[in-house]
């Protein structure tokens, strides 16, 4: 079957099997390997992307279900070579180690800040509770999102403190 979806602002039309998972479509068909997969049961969240401006686990969505819809992946966070404040926060606050969970974490964090610009640490933890990290113990991820929140509010990126 033929599907058309807009990914990171670019329209793509492809012939796919109905059973093709969105994560595989993004990674294998479109070469957008920034989103990852890490489980079989929709638990780990390494695959989180935006589907119509909402974070979803793309391993649990068929590419066919995204037909006619808009998808946004980590590759779209930086604009014009400029990192998104969420990405900057992760860099400043050591929010990543192996980097495998990071794209999914950042996509959810970006959505969270778009809707709740000043989340408390507990809210950040709750928002990320469906996504696993094996390296960081989550603390620096929370600090990274707080950094992004504070720096977006103040419109500055010079203060390095986490």
């Amino acid at each position, binding site marked *: 079957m033929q599907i058309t979806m807009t990914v990171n602002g670019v329209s793509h039309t492809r012939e796919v099997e109905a059973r093709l998972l969105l994560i595989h479509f993004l990674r294998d068909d479109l070469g957008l390997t920034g989103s990852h997969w890490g489980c*079989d049961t929709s638990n780990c969240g390494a695959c989180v992307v935006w589907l119509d401006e909402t974070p*979803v686990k793309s391993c649990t969505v068929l590419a066919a279900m995204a037909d006619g819809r808009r998808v946004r992946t980590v590759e779209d966070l930086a604009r014009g070579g400029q990192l998104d404040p969420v990405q900057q926060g992760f860099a400043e606050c050591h929010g990543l180690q192996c980097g495998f969970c990071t794209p999914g974490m950042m996509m959810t964090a970006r959505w969270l800040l778009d809707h709740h610009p000043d989340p408390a640490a507990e809210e950040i933890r709750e928002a990320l509770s469906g996504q696993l990290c094996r390296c960081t113990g989550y603390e620096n991820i929370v600090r990274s999102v707080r950094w992004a929140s504070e720096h977006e509010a103040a419109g500055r990126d010079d203060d390095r403190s986490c």
Partner: protein
Amino acid sequence: MQVPAYVEYEKASSVAHALALLARFGPEARILAGGHSLIPMMKLRLAQPETLIDINGLSELSYLTVTRDELRIGALTRHAQLLDSAEAARHFAILHDAEQVIADPVVRNWGTVGGSLCQADPSEDLSAAFAALKATMVIAHRGGTRTVPVRDFHTGPYETVVGPGEILTEIRIALRPGGGSAYEKVGRRAGDWPVGAAGSALWLDSGRLHGPTIADAGIGLTAVGAPRFAAAEAEDFLRGAPATQESFARAGELAAASCRPVSDQRGPADYKRHLASELTIRSLRRALARARPHGGGGPGGAPRDAG
């Protein structure tokens, strides 16, 4: 990652169209809503439908409406929408409580209320929450619709009364002023299926001499082998009983006695039976704290009430 077997796919443009597709493709066709129950089963190849009928475009099935006497929830309402609904929470805090602990925030963005109920997992939280509220299920078929009380909706693990040519379209709950409700769940980590969970809804008569009595009660249980996801004997006992800790303790005993939990890696049967009692009691206490006696005025408690 595991991947599904080959499957055909159709996109429905309306409820009528979806029903027509179901009729055309027969009993091996499955409705695809959020897919967060069905697609994991397909990836593990525990479910191998021949055709998927995608209803995600049916915005007419996604709504939360309060009429004069009902809360009506469209089956395609996403879990996140039910969680975020202040209206739903105002009338039935149990739904907000339950949605808070169903799956995780990202899964809730796409999984649907109807999809979860139709998946009919014996540990489904919404099955217990709607059972406590004695909701009514609206099922569409080519000849029209029919309604089924939620307690008659599930016929066994992963089985419901929704026939091969039918679609669940709506869940209705009768509005009754003054009620309080709450949900209590034990899981092993955030997002886990319940090891045991209970939800209660109470309506009170203002007390005569000794405090309020219970006008009506609904108790839903999940993951503990409760018949029809409910504790009917405990409810019968509570009706007319004083709203006291003693009554709740007795209700907990009755709820536990009516369950047939199964030992598994989540816990042994005796623990689950204990949870049936303990969580029934706790949910009753919190429901009470949110309730207002009949004739006392004021709405049922909002989710942040103490209790």
